[in-house]
């Protein structure tokens, strides 16, 4: 599964995109727990989930959404365009 990070999530984790073996993760929240277990950078990036948004295959989704069928997961802070 392709996982993307944007803005300060990308900066804290140190990478913009990576392939992740989601393993047994059924939901976005499960995937976040798996990532947080990797190392301190992920734990810091996902420390405050109220500031984290997710998109599944380029559509905004909730953090408890199912990962079934998703090929691309993106994590980012609330958007500030315009």
């Amino acid at each position, binding site marked *: 599964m392709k996982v*993307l990070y*944007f*803005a*300060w999530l*990308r900066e804290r984790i140190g990478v913009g995109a990576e392939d992740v073996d989601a393993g047994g993760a059924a939901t976005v929240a499960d995937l976040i727990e798996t990532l947080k277990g990797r190392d301190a950078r992920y734990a810091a990036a996902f420390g405050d989930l109220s500031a984290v948004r997710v*998109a599944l295959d*380029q*559509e*905004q989704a909730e953090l408890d959404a199912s990962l079934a069928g998703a090929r691309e997961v*993106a994590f*980012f*802070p*609330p*958007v*500030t*365009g*315009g």
Partner: protein
Amino acid sequence: MSIRVQTEDFDVGAEVAELTAGRADIGAIVTFTGLVRDHAGSGGGAELIAAMELEHYPGMTEKALAEIEAEAHQRWPLQATTIIHRFGRLSPGDRIVLVVAASAHRQAAFDAAAFLMDYLKTRAPFWKKEETPDGGRWVDARCEDDAAAERWRKG
């Protein structure tokens, strides 16, 4: 309907001219141009901004803008719309975003342009980082932007 996500600058007059060329059924055109300000904060704070870095999510950005534009056309009788959003490194005074809405009637053009901006600010995957004398700082999402987008919700 036209959407562009680009690093290059744009020309407001040229965009309006292109949209109206060869037709005489448009009565009203509203444009919104957003620019990089040289001071941070909503009140025009004291902190100087040297530059702004705009990051986006290629692929999702174009999809989100197309959805926003299609929704505007469903809600109002629009004859044409244009959305241009820049990304990359910008300086104070630089243009960031352009929204154009053309309609036979002025209220539809005004409402659609305001709607496009409100939705773009809360749904399009762009992030701004300001460079200040104290270093770089990611711009926080503003509650007012969520509230502005919320007013278009149908009951």
